[in-house]
């Protein structure tokens, strides 16, 4: 597989910001801000991949509220693989999060075990 980070930068960086994708997105009209639509998610993914923003709670919510339903892709004038971009960006959030927690959770479990 290609490096997901590079792949995000290569694809998401092309977004024209037309917003047509938002029309078909089920979460956009129900979400509290643009991060709940494909245009927002694609650009957040791009910034995250470039290291321009941190994986803040808003960023995590934006990426993880996506249904990966690909309705948006029907409307993208440059046919961006939007669901793929978002899934790859989730990897940037999930993978380090897990590694950090693994050592952490082992320690905690040991503590827990000793107490009980």
């Amino acid at each position, binding site marked *: 597989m290609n490096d997901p980070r590079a792949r995000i930068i290569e694809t998401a960086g092309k977004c024209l910001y037309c917003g047509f994708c938002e029309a078909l997105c089920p979460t956009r009209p129900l979400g509290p801000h643009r991060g709940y639509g494909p245009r927002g998610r694609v650009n957040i993914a791009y910034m995250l991949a470039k290291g321009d923003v941190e994986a803040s709670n808003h960023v995590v*919510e934006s990426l*993880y509220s996506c249904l990966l339903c*690909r309705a948006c892709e029907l409307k993208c004038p440059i046919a961006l693989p939007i669901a793929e971009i978002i899934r790859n960006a989730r*990897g940037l959030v999930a*993978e380090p999060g*897990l590694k950090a927690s693994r050592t952490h959770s082992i320690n905690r479990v040991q503590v827990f075990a000793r107490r009980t």
Partner: protein
Amino acid sequence: MLDVRSILRILADNIKRTGLPVPGDQGLLTSWSTGLGLSEKGDTILYTGGLYQLLPYIEEFAEYLEKLEGGKAGGLLLKAAGRLGRLANLSKIVVRPSREKLEYSRQVLVSIVELLRRAGVEIAYPGGVDSYSGVLLYDMGLDTVFVEHARRVAQKLESVGAETIVTVDPHTTHVLRKVFPQYVEGFAPIVKSYIEVLAENIDKLQFKQGDAGRVVIHDPCFYARYENIIDEPRQLLRRAGYTVVEPRRSGRMTYCCGGPVESIAPRLSRRIAETRARELDEAGGGTIVTLCPICYSNLRRAYRGLGIERDIQDLSILLYRRLGP
């Protein structure tokens, strides 16, 4: 929105411990096949990937997590549970799905097997090989855990040397057909949804004569937009005597049931499901047909929440009912 990172940790931990996304054991996946006399070996094997069987458990688990997130203290509790992913108590408390839900899943799978038999497909079910596909790990971006899991699943599948693998739900179909080959070197069996297999053998299927009434079809995103399985279920329903009614958004333009974010953003998920449930209700048909366990459960819950009485059935059940003598 629930605490995503905690959920990811719990999910990854469950998979590593049991191979399943929720606490439980292998028996959950295979007990449905008991007494069906399915052979263990064959060129064409059934691989359920476990989504139908596990969904009642996933639902219960999600509801439990939602309750945990409820109050302020609850939110902290969830985070703590996430950090202490291996907390044994968590797995004991959560999973007690209703008998009715479990029975429905069993019926779906039994119907699929019978439909395949009647279509002249010799289908084997090596129960030891059936396992959870790991699709949730993939969707959530847990790539490392997914790849480890996928390799194990692929190894099992390859060990029986089948030419064709028949799947039963859209997510498993997609992950096995398009995703596995990207992550597991050399994995290249033919993967087909049972719907495709039935459509290929449609002339062998003997259905009862007569009008079976109107049904409104709800295309799942993963069949319609990822795997281009759109015509096949319609052909089958028509052949079985049903009149297929299209909702406002259908086929490639279908609208999601909200299911995929159910365990992470339950309120958002519910509102999407309600939007879709209303739309299907207004289509002017009878029974709603679903092709995916996630759609089935999410829409069913939405109707209950909306107080709308509407029959909703899996495709396999509707087709099975119409099988001739």
